[in-house]
């Protein structure tokens, strides 16, 4: 019943740095041969530290950037933006939400216009219909009609992230890439946004690629988990596999480094401290 919506095979991305007066030219291997496949309606979490190539991978999955080598298939279509470019339909299918909602909204654009803009660019719907669709989406993400004519600076961080999610959903995408969507948010707001994402996934049958460095969030939201380290996928499996029996040393280090907030580990620490 469930079909594969996203498939990546041997994705490689190199960046060539031109040499300067004192530095020789060099090549940075940001992503080194990553493969995975993702079924419709599921969530894949990509975990890694800064410099692990997870955001580069996000750019490739959203077709912003082309891979140096490897094959990307989205919804059954092979994607090669260098050779064939992109059709409007392909662009519609994949959308992205960035970490920092302050940076991803135009400060001089009203929220209603922010939400309607993808429709202006990608469809030929009349203004009235665009307005209605934007208003509907605004309500869907838990904001109210009076927010329609406000500017981004009038919103809190959590509300702005809701707006960014709403904008990404305006074109009815199939795949949503979420690049650290809750990292900049407070705990209480983080819970609200994670719940919203779960509701939207149920309602629209969305597939998520969820990029994060927070293992507790990943454990909560993911169906499948991929751990990246220095451009390589060192661990890939279902959530249960990865969390119950991590195979790679780096994954184990990552788990050991995550602070634990349960009573048992506090007791152990206090006992060590007293000793």
């Amino acid at each position, binding site marked *: 019943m469930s079909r594969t919506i996203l498939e990546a095979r041997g994705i490689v991305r190199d960046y060539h740095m031109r040499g300067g007066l004192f530095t020789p030219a060099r090549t940075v291997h940001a992503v080194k041969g990553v493969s995975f496949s993702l079924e419709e309606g599921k969530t894949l979490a990509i975990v890694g*530290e*800064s410099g692990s190539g997870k955001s580069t991978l996000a750019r490739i999955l959203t077709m912003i950037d082309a891979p140096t080598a490897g094959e990307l298939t989205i919804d059954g279509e092979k994607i090669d933006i260098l050779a064939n470019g992109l059709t409007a339909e392909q662009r519609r299918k994949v959308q992205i939400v960035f970490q920092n909602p302050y940076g991803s909204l135009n400060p001089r654009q009203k929220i209603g216009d922010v939400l309607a803009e993808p429709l202006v660019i990608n469809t030929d719907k009349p203004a009235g219909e665009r307005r209605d669709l934007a208003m509907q989406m605004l309500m869907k993400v838990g904001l109210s009609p009076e927010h329609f004519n406000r500017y981004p600076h009038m919103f809190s961080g959590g509300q702005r992230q809701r707006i960014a999610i709403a904008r990404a959903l305006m074109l009815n995408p199939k795949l949503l890439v979420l690049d650290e969507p809750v990292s900049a948010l*407070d*705990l*209480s707001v*983080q*819970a*609200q946004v*994670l*719940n919203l994402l*779960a509701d939207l996934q149920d309602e629209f049958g969305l597939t998520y690629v969820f990029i994060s*460095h*927070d*293992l*507790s*969030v990943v*454990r*909560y*939201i993911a169906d499948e988990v991929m751990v990246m380290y220095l451009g390589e996928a060192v661990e890939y499996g279902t959530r249960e596999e990865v969390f119950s029996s991590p195979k790679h040393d780096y994954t184990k*280090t*990552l788990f*050991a*480094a*995550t*602070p*634990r*907030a*349960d*009573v048992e*580990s*506090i*007791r152990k*620490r*206090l006992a060590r*401290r007293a000793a």
Partner: protein
Amino acid sequence: MALLEIENLVVEFGTSAGAFRAVDGISLKVDEGEVLAIVGESGSGKSVSMLAVMGLLPWTAKVSADRMTFRGRDLLGLSPSDRRKIVGKDMAMIFQEPMASLNPCFTVGFQIEEVLRVHMGFDRRERRERAIKLLEAVGIPEPEQRLKSFPHQMSGGQAQRVMIAIALACDPKLLIADEPTTALDVTIQKQILDLLMRLQAERGMAMIMITHNMGVVAETADRVIVQYKGHKMEEADVLTLFEAPKNNYTRALLAALPDNAVGDRLPTISGPFEMPASGSAR
């Protein structure tokens, strides 16, 4: 006698819409060699109350308290020049963004030695020797070479180690760490927390750990204060707080941790919360 004692601290900022009360009646005590965590979300006044202790708030802030003493000395009545003799020496602070706290124009060696020159009056050789020792203590390899590095030549974790070295330069009695690991990766966070806890134990120094991360609280604190909108919601030792939180805000905060999620929805944090009476004694 407590090292730091604050009673009924109020900090107000003058805004165009009138006075905004960022800290409303916070009282706390820190004993020598103790680790106190102050936890809260943004806007809870956790940083502002500690900046008030350090005297680092801008002139728009109005600080008042019934009592604010450090080692028995009244901090509010001190002249700015007397205060500067304490701040950075007996009481030091490290911040969230190490890169933003270091001066990009000077080598890290210069910046460590500056503290030693101002507060300790060491001569050039003493300063250099002490700076090398400090970099060794915070776990930076090849300290002689690294003294000549500029901040941009270091990683985030290394820069935070340098900040810790500067803070520890004069053997402070109290170290205030304001979200010291928030900008760092988890594996680096672990290293920095381990380092801070080791140095804290070795030197018997008191530490105030400001954080929004319950995991960091669990891994470091002896005692915890939970703040919300400028109020102290709860104060307890760390085990009691996690085992049997009394205040409903604390309970909501713990329940919203994805670790503790039951079922497929996270409980959200929504008021009203049991506000303690303003200026309540501990």
